[in-house]
């Protein structure tokens, strides 16, 4: 048993009784001590040794498996301190005190002993302390609602300071929604509850400490003479914002993006955009969708876009090439391995469909289905993600019309497809009709590709898609 004497600081105000508190088990009758600690004085912290309490079943030693805090961290009562394990049982040890961790007595995988000190905590002398047993912590003059912790089978967790605040404002803890850990009621929750009670109009702020105004905010703009139209002006009050910046290292997917995009920056990009009328293709796809479904394949527009691109690349092979590091040689790739940008939970990945030049539209659809399911399961292999020669990004499935895509090295061109919009257009007879319009934005490496080449490729690609029957002529 540790006995510490509180150093009597001159500015401690005792509310009802004046006596020096001694941290002795017998003297710690909690119902009295609570009042003692209402003080606004500078705390005289003293170190308390928090011992590992009895685990039960006669267990005397446990293994420390994880620390949730480190030396120097501040903890509140009920915060988790560490996880220990004993014979198939995992035990969460929580703090009895509010304070600052000053020493950890064990490292991970050490054996800890019941009854021996686990951590040293420097406690704030002005704050309350939980007794050895889990006693209901409330001031003596509380109402029934405050002493009784259970709400119909639920426990309310709140530190003594929060309980005091609730009691001062005559709030039933059972009516406050806790937003802290383990649904603990925090000070902000009490303040929010109060704000709602007084009907204040408050600007939305997730973690702001809101000071409830005393009356409903009203304002009559000086210019408005008509009293029937009263526009309430939001009252601006200084908000104490308690959000903290969070710094995390760049790893994994993000690191990959950083590397790719930094390299891509070295490529001089130029852009070229156009509008495609997909009205005929939409109709064609509608007809072919059930056929594909019968074969167990989902048919989107992408297989058509990809195949048309490959047909275009046959005529303009420089778009399927690669420039070496020193810009000495251009390698014309024989295979059309067309990459498809995919958005996954972790970020952007670009698997590619191999050898599109010898694939039918259906083959491409099958392969896309395979890549998509592997992609969403996070199981794409290295061969799926390497060897790409040209890329299409269907950002339109999420939204957008025009884009400025970034070329993925070692490729030299990329196309971004916007969303399909139904827009009015003129047909050959000069009549307005409903057209299914999509926008494409190409980017290419201006070191080896010129605008004219890109434009001609785009026109060819566009003609295949606007008149799908023409694809039949050139299909290999």
């Amino acid at each position: 048993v540790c006995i510490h004497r509180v150093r009597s600081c001159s500015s401690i105000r005792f509310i009802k009784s004046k006596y020096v508190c001694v941290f002795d088990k017998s003297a710690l009758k909690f119902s009295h001590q609570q009042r003692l600690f209402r003080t606004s004085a500078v705390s005289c912290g003293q170190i308390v040794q928090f011992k590992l309490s009895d685990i039960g079943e006669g267990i005397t030693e446990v293994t420390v498996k994880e620390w949730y805090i480190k030396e120097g961290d501040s903890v509140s009562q009920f915060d988790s301190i560490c996880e220990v394990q004993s014979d198939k049982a995992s035990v969460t040890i929580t703090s009895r005190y509010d304070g600052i961790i000053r020493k950890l007595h064990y490292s991970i995988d050490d054996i800890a002993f019941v009854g021996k000190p686990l951590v040293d905590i420097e406690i704030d002398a002005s704050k309350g302390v939980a007794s050895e047993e889990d006693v209901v912590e409330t001031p003596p003059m509380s109402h029934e609602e405050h002493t009784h912790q259970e709400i119909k089978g639920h426990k309310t967790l709140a530190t003594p300071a929060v309980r005091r605040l609730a009691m001062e404002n005559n709030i039933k803890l059972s009516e406050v929604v806790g937003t802290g850990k383990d649904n603990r009621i925090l000070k902000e929750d009490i303040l929010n509850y109060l704000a709602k009670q007084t009907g204040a109009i408050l600007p939305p702020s997730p973690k702001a400490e809101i000071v409830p105004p005393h009356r409903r905010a009203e304002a009559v703009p000086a210019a408005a003479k008509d009293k029937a139209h009263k526009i309430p002006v939001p009252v601006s009050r200084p908000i104490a914002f308690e959000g903290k910046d969070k710094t995390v290292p760049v790893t994994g997917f993000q690191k990959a993006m950083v590397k790719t995009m930094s390299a891509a920056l070295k490529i001089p990009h130029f852009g070229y955009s156009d509008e495609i009328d997909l009205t005929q293709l939409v109709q064609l796809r509608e007809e072919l969708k059930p056929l594909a479904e019968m074969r167990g394949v989902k048919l989107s527009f992408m297989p058509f876009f990809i195949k048309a691109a490959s047909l275009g690349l046959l005529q303009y092979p420089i778009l399927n090439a690669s420039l070496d590091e020193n810009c000495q040689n251009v390698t014309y790739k024989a295979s059309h391995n067309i990459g498809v940008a995919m958005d996954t939970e972790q970020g952007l990945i670009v698997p590619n469909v191999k050898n599109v030049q010898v694939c039918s539209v259906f083959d491409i659809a099958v392969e896309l289905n395979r890549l998509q399911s592997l992609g969403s399961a996070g199981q794409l292999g290295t061969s799926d993600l390497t060897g790409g020669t040209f890329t299409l990004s269907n950002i339109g499935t999420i939204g957008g019309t025009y884009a400025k895509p970034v070329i993925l090295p070692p490729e030299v061109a990329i196309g971004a497809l916007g969303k399909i919009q139904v827009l009015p257009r003129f047909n050959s007879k000069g009549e307005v009709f409903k057209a299914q319009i999509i926008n494409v934005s190409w980017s290419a490496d201006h070191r080896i590709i010129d605008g004219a080449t890109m434009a001609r490729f785009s026109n060819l690609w566009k003609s295949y898609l606007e008149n799908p029957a023409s694809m039949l002529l050139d299909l290999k």
Partner: protein
Amino acid sequence: MVLQSLKNCLWLPCVLRTPKACFWSTASGGLIIQSISNDVYQNLAVEDWIHDHMDLEKQQVLFLWRNSPAVVIGRHQNPWQECNLKLLRQKNIKLARRRSGGGTVYHDLGNINLTFFTTRKKYERMENLKLVVKALKALRPQLDVHVTDRYDILLDRQYKISGTAAKLGRTSAYHHCTLLCNADKFVLSSVLKSPFKGLKSNATPSVPALVKNLFEEDPSLTSEMLLDAIAKEYAVQHQIDHHITLINPADETLLPGISDKTKELQTWEWVYGKTPKFSISTCLNMVYKDSVLDVKVNMDVKHGRIEVCNIDLPEQWLPPGLYSELVKSLTGSKFCPNETTTLVTTLLRLCPQDDELHSRWSLLCENMIRLM
């Protein structure tokens, strides 16, 4: 789905119509609930919820649940050490980490889970297991089942039919155990065998045991019968009605905050990131052209991320710049095949377009990824 249990359970009108207050506050000393979901994460989340939110002072709770195929590792275990992750991914078997200690188990619908919730003071595992044995014997008196001092239940003195684990919090505690009724033993043994070599760790190891299904001993037994028998015994011992209340773990009104708990249990940070620090010391046997290369690999993994990485390649097999880029990228990354694949394929974009180089790179990286 556990719909077969409906014929054994009585629906309390409370569950369907009235808010949670009515549902949770029964005036008796115990409550028996059963999950209608077979999702391991949802069911583990229910355990968390009851542990965090229910006051067990007045009534103790028995929670009955079954999962579709899943491997569940203990709080402080290492999934790479405990199971065949590749096989899990192939067979679409889920991997979950529970919050209680103990070893790794395989769950499927032929395995039932029982969780006994009490206050921290009333935590008593032996009593719970004796209850289960009593229930089994009441159902089939000829069954030779008994509780060992390691908290296992053995059939015929040699086959393990139940494993135990527990979680203790500040004021409440739970003890859960499995019971093998009719699980797929073939999948069980193949999935719980890790092919990993050269792993050094202080994570809790599992103790492999010979297992047998109760169904093999007595083919007339079904999971439903066992659940019912245990519920009946619990009801008798707690002097409550033999009612089993069905609960839906996706019901946010009944269990506020449950979807957050479910989500957390599925995050990579929880399932893999909570693995205690471990090190790998192994040798990749790479077949390249006509020779076999022995490449020693040493890695330290902390919080599921690669802290230190050393690959002992023959000199100049890869350009030194590229090798250091690889090590730099891997350091700090998740020890995860998906993340590593993305990183290495990205790096490939940035190096010279040389077929020989590409094939060496792919060979090395595929071997590295196979470790994860």
